């Protein structure tokens, strides 16, 4: 079984500042890793995913994440955030069968003017 820990429940930042949302995972087998975003009163939207290959993955809306196998981490970054990035962000993991996606508890990113 896999598990995910998002290390920060809330991250407040100012507009145009860089941001990092931290995610660690636990698994005894190879994994796929995902970041999803949930805007208020909406469903989840896939930001980016790591399946294999290059450890730096780029996603939508200027986000990127780096897979670090030795530290079992998959942190999400953006060099300059906008007010519109305010949302809940979820890190998720599955084994390579992809049959079950396990989510972290979410990080609320609030971008202030």
């Amino acid at each position, binding site marked *: 079984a896999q598990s995910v820990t998002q290390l920060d429940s809330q991250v407040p930042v100012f507009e145009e500042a860089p941001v990092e949302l931290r995610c660690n995972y636990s698994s005894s087998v190879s994994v796929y890793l995902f970041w999803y975003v949930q805007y208020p009163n909406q469903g*989840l939207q896939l930001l980016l995913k790591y399946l294999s290959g290059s450890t730096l993955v780029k996603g939508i809306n200027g986000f990127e994440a780096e897979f670090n196998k030795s530290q079992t981490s998959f942190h999400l970054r953006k060099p300059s955030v906008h007010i519109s990035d305010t949302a809940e962000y979820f890190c998720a993991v599955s084994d390579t069968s*992809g049959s*079950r996606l396990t989510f972290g*508890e979410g990080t609320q990113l609030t971008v202030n003017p």
Partner: protein
Amino acid sequence: DTAVSQTPKYLVTQMGNDKSIKCEQNLGHDTMYWYKQDSKKFLKIMFSYNNKELIINETVPNRFSPKSPDKAHLNLHINSLELGDSAVYFCASSLYPGTGGGYTFGSGTRLTVV
């Protein structure tokens, strides 16, 4: 066209009632899921179906019964609703497991039991 659509979007009902939530996907995906998001926004899988066959059945009260009439539809029926069932229920779909495509989620059904 909405890829994964759920109805209703909001559902307010009294304790003890029976209700259903419907989900349809037009992506041609093989697998569909129900997730529950609690008041702290934690997402937990409830069920998954692959081409109408039940694959995952988590520790969910048997008052919850999924039904998949075809691979494009997965409905959730809940009997004898309780206050603790209040949550947002998300339907999702994906290609056959193993492709790593990620899941596509519906916009959710907010269930409030009073």
